[in-house]
């Protein structure tokens, strides 16, 4: 995701920015105070940024983000721009977008929020030190520092939101991938579908299985669908009940469900739980399921007559699988 998409995801429009500014009590007076501090900031940027990086480079976990001198020089330059940005005296959409860009970059390189917040603490300390040295009047220092604090916290709120939005985005993409993988309906033959189920089935996935099975059967105008549950570790009442429901629904469409991959353990569980699956075609092995499925489309698997040299084809072939009833 680039920072422009984050602007949209986080709904950072003018109204939202105004609302945040109001809550952080970041007034126009603060902004003009920050703008007035610009010469001060320009004078001490290098000193502050250098000491800022002394901290980052002294800590083993933050040091790894700056592998060589060139990187350090490059990020120091960016940092100077960022620092001066605090004293631009502006807090509009363009400002927020710029801050978002920085946040997105941090997120992308995997700099976690704790280092971000910790580093910001250092900024505050350095700014406070220089303000105390330069402004003689205590009241002025307090006011200036308050304004800095407001815009820094404002920035931090955007950065944290960026981190959360990025994580949410990743989570959603993973969930979509899992959803897609959880019901892989395969076409194994003309009008015969196969759904190999693997992994635990919760009620959410169970619902999804039913919807997906019905949709695929209807799309392919399939005569039957084989559901193989060999890869499902636990078949409990809920799972069994859902399979019975799916079978009933598929039958309403005018197709059949064949349940295969029933292990001894699962067979025992189903009977002990008292689930009535008498309405379903059940078989232990997938290969048997495919053979049964073929009978629904008037086909059968036949053994190929073995050809030997000097012998007529089919002369000694074993009994072929006859036409099904």
């Amino acid at each position, binding site marked *: 995701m680039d920072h422009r998409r984050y602007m949209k995801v986080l709904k950072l429009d003018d109204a939202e920015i105004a609302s945040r500014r109001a809550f952080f009590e970041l007034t126009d007076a603060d902004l003009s105070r920050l703008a007035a501090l610009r010469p001060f900031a320009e004078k001490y940027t290098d000193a502050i940024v250098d000491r800022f990086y002394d901290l980052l480079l002294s800590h083993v976990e933050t040091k790894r983000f700056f592998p060589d001198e060139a990187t350090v020089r490059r990020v120091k330059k960016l940092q100077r721009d960022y620092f001066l940005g605090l004293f631009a005296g502006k807090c509009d959409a363009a400002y927020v977008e710029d801050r978002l860009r920085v946040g997105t970059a941090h997120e992308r390189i995997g700099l976690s929020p704790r280092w971000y917040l910790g580093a910001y603490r250092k900024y505050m300390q350095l700014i406070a030190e220089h303000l105390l040295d330069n402004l003689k009047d205590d009241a002025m220092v307090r006011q200036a520092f308050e304004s800095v604090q407001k815009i820094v916290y404002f920035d931090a709120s955007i950065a944290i939101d960026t981190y959360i939005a990025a994580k949410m985005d990743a989570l959603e993409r993973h969930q979509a991938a899992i959803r897609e993988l959880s019901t892989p309906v395969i076409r194994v033959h003309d009008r015969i579908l196969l759904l190999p189920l693997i992994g635990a089935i919760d009620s959410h996935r169970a619902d999804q299985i*039913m*919807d997906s099975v*019905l*949709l695929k*059967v*209807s799309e392919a*105008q*399939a*005569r039957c669908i084989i559901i193989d549950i060999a890869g499902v570790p636990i078949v409990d009442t809920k799972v069994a009940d859902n399979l019975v*429901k*799916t079978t*009933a*629904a*598929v*039958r*309403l*469409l*005018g*197709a059949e469900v064949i349940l295969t991959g029933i292990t001894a353990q699962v067979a025992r569980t189903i009977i002990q739980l008292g689930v009535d699956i008498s309405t379903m075609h059940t078989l232990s092995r997938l290969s048997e399921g495919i053979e049964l499925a073929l009978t629904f489309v008037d086909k059968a698997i036949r053994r190929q007559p073995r050809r030997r040299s000097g012998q007529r084809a089919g002369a000694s072939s074993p009994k072929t699988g006859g036409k099904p009833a």
Partner: protein
Amino acid sequence: MKGTIPLLRLGSTIVATIHTELRDKVAQDFQDDMLTELELRGANALVIDISGLETVDTYVARVLAETGRMAKLMGARTVLVGMRPEIAATLVRMGYAMDGIQTALNLEEGLTLLRRRRREMP
């Protein structure tokens, strides 16, 4: 015929294509027409095509199942064809699986099914 649902004769089969909701009078007329047709023409099968229906609630499902049972009393078998996947899911989730009703994917499949059954038991 007094109803709005057209009944089509194909040999000894009656095909009913439903695209309006089966509400009160419509359902009543449909059943009457269908039974009259069975009585007068002596058809032995009924195909109800609901591929045009976007929703089927339990009331409509009951009317359809009921029609099937009425036809059966007059010696005709019923095949329900073209149910949409989302309708099937809804009906089953509401616990209404329409047991005992024969189904097929589409009209063609339904007619094939009937032909096959006729061959099996003449």
